[in-house]
């Protein structure tokens, strides 16, 4: 691992872009999936098409999606925007179903109680339904976050620099060390992101902490 000690700055720099390329799409994807999941839940006729449609997006292999992005966006192939948009699509694909399931798991009597207290539809969504759906949504978000971190590394093939660049550089020089460092860095990043989401969920769901739940 002498290679690592000589290249600490480079690895940290790549890890930072890796984090941006995987987490910005996670946020965008979640923000887009929230209204879509809400619609799937509210309009039963849309549930099937929305869930099936988003699921289909996830079947498209990542390298193919990265390469097809310029066709849709009119960007250059090396533009990191391609990766951001593609990863956002994957996040939406995973999260629409989770959001719909999370909202469906909110007990009816709770929403009815809120309604009878005179809370309007929008306020009810943001102050009652969404907070109660956080545990389910977060579980899906953790899966999306971890898979985003691993999928982004594929973008090194089309020349977008991040931790995956250590794989392509190492392979081109037939040198295993950078590749191993890259794999470990990806795993560490995935664990860190996962822990960060768990922490946020803990802060957002104080009622789950006291032990004896309702």
């Amino acid at each position, binding site marked *: 691992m002498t290679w690592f000690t000589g290249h600490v700055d480079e690895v940290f720099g790549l890890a930072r872009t890796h984090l941006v390329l995987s987490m910005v799409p996670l946020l965008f994807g979640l923000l887009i999936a929230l209204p879509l999941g809400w619609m799937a839940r509210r309009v039963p006729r849309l549930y099937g098409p929305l869930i099936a449609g988003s*699921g*289909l997006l*996830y*079947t*498209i*292999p*990542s*390298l*193919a*999606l990265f*390469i*097809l992005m*310029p*066709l849709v966006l009119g960007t250059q*192939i090396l533009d990191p925007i391609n990766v951001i948009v593609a990863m956002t699509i*994957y996040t939406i694909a*995973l999260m629409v179903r989770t959001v719909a399931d999370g909202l469906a798991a909110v007990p009816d009597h709770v929403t009815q109680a809120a309604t009878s207290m005179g809370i309007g539809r929008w306020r009810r969504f943001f102050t009652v339904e969404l907070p109660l759906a956080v545990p389910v949504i977060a579980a899906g978000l953790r*899966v999306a976050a*971890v*898979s985003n*971190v*691993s*999928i982004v*590394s*594929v973008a*090194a*093939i*089309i020349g977008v620099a991040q*931790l*995956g660049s*250590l*794989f*392509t550089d*190492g*392979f081109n020089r*037939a040198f*295993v060390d950078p*590749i*191993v460092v*890259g*794999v470990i860095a*990806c*795993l560490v990043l*995935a*664990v860190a992101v996962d822990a960060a989401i768990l922490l946020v969920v803990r802060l957002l769901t104080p009622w789950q902490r006291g032990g004896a739940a309702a």
Partner: protein
Amino acid sequence: MNLVWTWLSEPSHYLGSDGILARSWQHLGYMVLTLLIAATVAIPLGLWIGHTGRGRIVVVNAVNGMRSLPTLGLLFIAVLLMGPRIPGDLAFLAPSIFVLVVLAVPPILAGTYSGVDEVDPAARDAARGMGMTSWQVLFGVELPGALPLIFSGLRSAALQVVATATIAATVSIGGLGRFLIDGLAVRDYGQMAGGALLVGVLALLLDGAFSLVQRLSVSPGLSAPEASSRNNQDSTATITT
């Protein structure tokens, strides 16, 4: 868009040993070979874990761990370490298939295990009460009941393999990934995007085919209206590269 269309509509691109048709077959061939090897390992193991209830934690961790492993790195490490010890063309192919199998095992294992695990305990008890042996319960009750989820696992594995086999073109194996990588090397965007489109279509077709098989595999005894909630147990591809 025009570049892609020009590339795709050129008849000579379809024929020959490096044409679209041959590459598609090659891609499917890698997938079938990988799934056969992975299923031979994962289905018996999953049945055993589901039947005995031992080793569940291993399954959960294998699936979660696999999700965070960057496949590209894994592939390169396998080729660099195993390649020099293998003669000829196999030097690239064998390590690639090895990595594909490693990636395909967890989803099949998880599908098989949870399929057996979710068999109605009442059905299992009834089978025992009728005097069925442990093996008869496994093959007569648990396996048929688990089939839809086994196919769901195979479906996730197939999609994972198709995606990773595309990436594996960087270590000079064949398949549709060749168009993406070769096009990139010579800056021929038409070829790259045309190949990418074909890979996407292949994945969608496979997904459709597997979902059909999955639906048909529901045991007739379980497709009665009251048991139809099982059909919703469609743990669609959660792993992709």
